[in-house]
């Protein structure tokens, strides 16, 4: 197995606060790695350091064996890294289709789309993929929570990433909708993507992840197979709680 992403001794400080504290891990090609941990543990910060919305204080991020941690976010996007945001920020005045076309135009590796029409065709494909094509012509501001989540996912997928970083794409969805998104993510992996996923929905994390990485106060406290990690005492105390319903 070849690693697509290597994170080496990564640290991020915000003034006095150490948000990420000397974290190292590897994401294998075509792997789904689940990232869990208590609120404020540094999960989103870690995704931001990989995607380039934040720069590390120390340490290194390597994508396909090349250091990328000093590149701006758009360059990392071109290399094949895409992320979603917890608080979704579509272009509200653009149609749903054009929101996704932006992703296709901007696109990763090779810049797939050659012009707007081509980008819109590709966008249509990804809207069908996330089952949002029936709302393609509407403005993005008209979408409610779960459809915004789908749009956020379609925008990232339209960039044709090799590495997809998902930040709580299932928050606010009901059980039926969660099952749908789980199968979407599995489909994305079948298409060859490597995926790092933050999620609090345990059922989703368990059924998706090949391995889990647990952060607590910015430090890695556990890493490994889901069953092993989820029965780790420290993980139960810090994150899962003793009284699961």
């Amino acid at each position, binding site marked *: 197995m070849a690693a697509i992403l290597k994170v080496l001794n990564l640290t991020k400080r915000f003034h006095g606060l150490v948000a990420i504290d000397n974290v190292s891990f590897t994401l294998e090609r075509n792997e789904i790695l689940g990232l869990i941990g208590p609120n*404020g543990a540094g999960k989103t910060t870690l995704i931001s350091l990989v995607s380039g919305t934040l720069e590390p204080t120390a340490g290194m991020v390597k994508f396909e064996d090349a250091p990328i941690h000093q590149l701006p976010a758009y360059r990392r996007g071109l290399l094949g890294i895409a992320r979603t945001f917890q*608080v979704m920020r579509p272009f509200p005045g653009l149609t749903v289709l054009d929101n996704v076309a932006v992703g296709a135009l901007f696109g990763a590796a090779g810049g797939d789309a050659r012009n707007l029409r081509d980008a819109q065709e590709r966008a249509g494909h990804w809207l069908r993929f996330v089952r949002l094509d029936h709302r393609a012509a509407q403005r993005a501001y008209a979408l409610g929570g779960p459809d915004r989540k789908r749009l956020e996912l379609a925008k990232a997928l339209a960039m044709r990433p090799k590495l997809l970083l998902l930040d709580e794409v299932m928050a606010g969805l009901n059980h039926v909708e969660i099952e749908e998104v789980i199968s979407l993510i599995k489909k994305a992996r079948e298409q060859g993507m490597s995926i790092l996923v933050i999620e609090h929905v345990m059922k989703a994390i368990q059924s998706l992840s090949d391995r889990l990485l647990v952060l607590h106060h910015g430090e890695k406290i556990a890493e490994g197979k889901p069953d092993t990690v989820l029965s780790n005492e420290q993980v139960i105390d810090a994150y899962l709680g003793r009284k699961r319903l």
Partner: protein
Amino acid sequence: MSETLLKVDGLKAGYGEMAVLDDIHLEIERGEIVALVGSNGAGKTTLLRALSRLIPSTGRVTFANRSLSELAPHQVFSLRLVQVPEGRQLFDQMSVEDNLLMGAYRRTNRAAITADLERVYGLFPTLKERRRQLAGSLSGGEQQMCAIARGLMAAPQLLMIDEMSLGLAPVVVDLLLVTLEEIRQEGVTVLLVEQDLFSAFHVADRGYVLETGKIVRVGTARELSEDPEVRRAYLGI
């Protein structure tokens, strides 16, 4: 002795031309925990906004024996009908503690406010650690905690929580469910909007199911969680 705290009769509401809620009837007893469930887009948040008077509505809404029809949102808030909004809606440029104190801005009993502040800090130690930080610098889950804590600081008679578990770690969700039981013992009534039906029905006495703007089911939490239609539509079982 049961006492009706909130009574909604024939409520209709929407946005401009778009009708969202149609002929809603709902009754909540003092001290109850009531779950409001339904698909996304069913109108749950719209109902909370109508009850808070953030959007206009027709029909009759009585809260603690007073009609809310003519009241502005801040007056409803003064009656201690308090909404924890979806998407946190904190004052990003204010400190965590000032956000919490904003929850108590209509209250005058300083000693009680201070006691409640200590209580919510006991509930969410992270917020105490970060009380001088700007709310906008909190993580997503911490912001959710701050929004719920701010609601509690209003000393609500009826606390309406929209998407309580959104973005929260499992251990924190458990803690909040226990907290709801506790504040109910103190006489607080809760209307809970929650996508995680297992959590919602675990703590609620009764539930209403909302579908495309209409109440389609009412029952005890047990009845609803055993209802085949509810199980199919929301639990995927």
